[in-house]
């Protein structure tokens, strides 16, 4: 590719265990291996795991989390983070339900929800870019704001839209492939292209890597930060539509755990808090791992309490492994 010298075999020496584990640094290879191992184990234990139906089922189950993970990954790559996307999803879903229930057209409701998502993200972005306060604190606060508004709008009661607006969450193309999966994949491809092949993505990367150097390189840092939060908000809008369409009924706190799960998936996929690092393909496999694992554990009959422990342990193991390169300088 370039004028690189040949990479020679490592000579013998005090190669420590850290050295030997270094190939694991390519987190994606590692993730795929783990996914395959889990898949093989699950299909040995239960015939039903490796069926098209079950695999599509897994994909459908992770589609909302997957989309939110793309938001989180894009934000983290730009050096940010949004803990409020979970309750933002809940709020938008409640607003959508209220609009339908009060007789607004589906078209108008969809437009309003998407626009509001954009505005919510924009507000987060403006506060973070202008105040320079760490995004964790800001979005943690906004997380409660969104939950509070959702409780008020829904009067604290579940909102059901039974029988209406089923396309996004329940329809299947050709009677086989759920629409939600298609949307997830489209958003994944969009994020991937945005990150890797556009100037905008490159600049986000640079800002995540070193905001001061980005500023002194003439990049409009604030504009990029605000716009990526706004874009993320818009995508959260889509997520909320898929969610309510699938569930038919939502409560204000439906998304309470979403943000942390998305964060976990991104980290498992190799995205770091450092910014500028990791790939969206990794994040994609991170979500996939979570989905397959939880499905496999379900099929094998592990309780949901134990599953929670497993999820936590995986996050810890994944971050430690991704840090191996840094343990020895």
């Amino acid at each position: 590719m370039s004028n690189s010298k040949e990479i020679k075999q490592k000579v013998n020496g005090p190669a420590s265990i850290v050295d030997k584990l270094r190939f694991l640094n390519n987190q994606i290879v590692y993730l795929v291996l783990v996914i395959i191992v889990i898949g093989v184990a699950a299909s040995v234990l239960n015939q039903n795991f490796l069926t098209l139906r079950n695999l599509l089922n897994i994909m459908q189950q992770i589609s909302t989390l997957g989309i939110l993970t793309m938001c989180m990954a894009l934000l983290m790559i730009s050096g940010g983070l949004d803990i409020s996307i979970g309750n933002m999803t809940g709020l938008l879903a409640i607003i959508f339900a209220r609009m339908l229930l009060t007789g607004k057209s589906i078209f108008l409701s969809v437009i309003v929800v998407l626009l509001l998502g954009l505005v919510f993200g924009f507000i987060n972005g403006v506060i973070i870019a202008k105040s320079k306060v760490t995004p964790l604190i800001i979005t943690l606060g906004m997380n409660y704001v969104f939950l509070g508004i959702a409780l008020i709008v829904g009067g604290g009661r579940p909102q059901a839209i039974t029988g209406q607006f089923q396309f996004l969450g329940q329809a299947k193309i050709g009677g086989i492939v759920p629409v939600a999966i298609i949307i997830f994949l489209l958003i994944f491809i969009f994020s991937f292209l945005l990150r890797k092949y556009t100037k905008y993505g490159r600049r986000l990367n640079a800002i995540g890597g070193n905001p001061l150097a980005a500023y002194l390189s003439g990049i409009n840092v604030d504009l990029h930060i605000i716009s990526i939060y706004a874009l993320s908000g818009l995508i959260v809008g889509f997520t909320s539509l898929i969610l309510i369409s699938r569930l038919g009924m939502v409560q204000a706190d439906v998304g309470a755990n979403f943000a942390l799960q998305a964060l976990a998936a991104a980290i498992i996929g190799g995205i770091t808090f450092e910014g500028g690092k990791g790939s969206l393909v990794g994040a994609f496999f991170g979500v996939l791992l979570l989905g397959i694992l939880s499905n496999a554990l379900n099929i094998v009959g592990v309780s949901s309490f134990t599953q929670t422990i497993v999820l936590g342990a995986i996050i810890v193991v994944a971050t430690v492994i991704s840090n191996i390169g840094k343990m020895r300088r």
Partner: protein
Amino acid sequence: MENKTLEKEKILDVKNISKEFPGVKALNNFNFDLYKGEVHGLIGENGAGKSTFIKLLSGAFQPNIGEITISGETHKYLTPHVARRLGIQTVYQEDILVPGISAAENIFLGTELIDSKKFFVSYRTMTDQANTLAEQMGITLKVDEIYERLSPSDQQFVKILKALAQKPKVLILDEPTQAFNVKDIGLVIEMVKRISKEGVGVIYIAHDLEEIIEVADRITVLRDGRAINTHDKKLEKYQPDDLAKEMIGRPVDLFFKKKESPVGDYIFEVRDLKIKESAKPISFRVREGEILGVAGLKGAGRSEIARAIFGAYRKLGGKIFYKGKNITPSNPIQAVKSGIALLTESKKVDGLFMGLPVDHNITVVGIDSIGKLFLSLGKERKLCNEYVNKLNIKTPSLNKEIRFLSGGNQQKVVIAKWLFKGVNILIVDEPTHGIDVNAKTEVYELFTELAASGKSIIMISSEMPELISLSDRIIIIRNYEISKVLEKNEINEENILSGFMGGN
């Protein structure tokens, strides 16, 4: 220097050491030894392996093969802890001290010198001891001043004193004079000689060949990870040319002779720029194709002025014009749009994206030229390779994260970043800091070429030869004011130095 032969006791012996990184053999069968009380210089091109070697000694890296014998103990590798125990102390270039506490506190941070039986630290004792240490080394230092308020050269002294407080047997200094003004470099050299007289073995890395010849008893030349030669001051006489030839592998001309090209009309003007209340406003003009040198002592305000012109430092007043048009930028975004570039001094902090690969670092500003909606990665790679070859940037591949490159090669990438963008006015702040002799010549040629093609360069520099050989005119800054302007025929060392002092 005289009676070194009497105490020819080897304190460090490094045998057949190799260190490989993915894609590079940073050290290849390298041998090195150090006697008690000597200064052993280490020179080599950017990426030759100097820093890698000292990191092996300080325990930051571990070698693949070879052995290190120190004070009679032989080790296959060292850890930071073992290195410290054996008496190895390293002064790195990167700042590792605590900015908000006093010099004395920094010096004794984490040492046994502070009475460990007492719970409370006695600031009196600490200050006294710091003063004694400074006196022994023949320097005057306000030891109770807050570290970050000290001048860059005093900060460097604090770093060296901190290492000395550990009573090392081996002291490693990586480019210790970079923070110094010309006239203070002598102080460091004196200090280093004094340290070695006390029986400490000093390993001294520098890019300035005259400096290293002056300070070192022996000099080892490193090229591509191998020891090419070791010279001994007592046995032979050697000149910078000889060393440079061994470093590069062919004869090099150390005296850069600029090819003169015609300069055009005035195109860039700074009018009544004021960034400090008490200072007179600054006004100067730059012609098309001109290289304007900006001389001055560290702390005279040159970097701040450069940043203010670039819109990255608060202005109290003043306007900037390009071709008669008022373009006064209020932030770097506008500056870059108007074709101004600023190559900052502290590249690691504000010039580079350490975690991003080489190619992304090069194209970050000029990204518009590699695609409209979608980037053409192939084109990007091709263009980047051109710059890598042109500037002779040493990297195993374009995908390598920039933090894995040697210091000098990182500096070249920052230069490549702005060249890739293509600008009208290039402001460079200490552009050849940390760059080897050969690469310096390459950078000078590039600047000359740029000027010949009609670009204007404003070059802040503390290096006399660089200022003198490249500048068409020089302005000298003192206390945030222009103290003197030298036309081409007035440029010489005495005039520049007298400008520093405020003489006319």
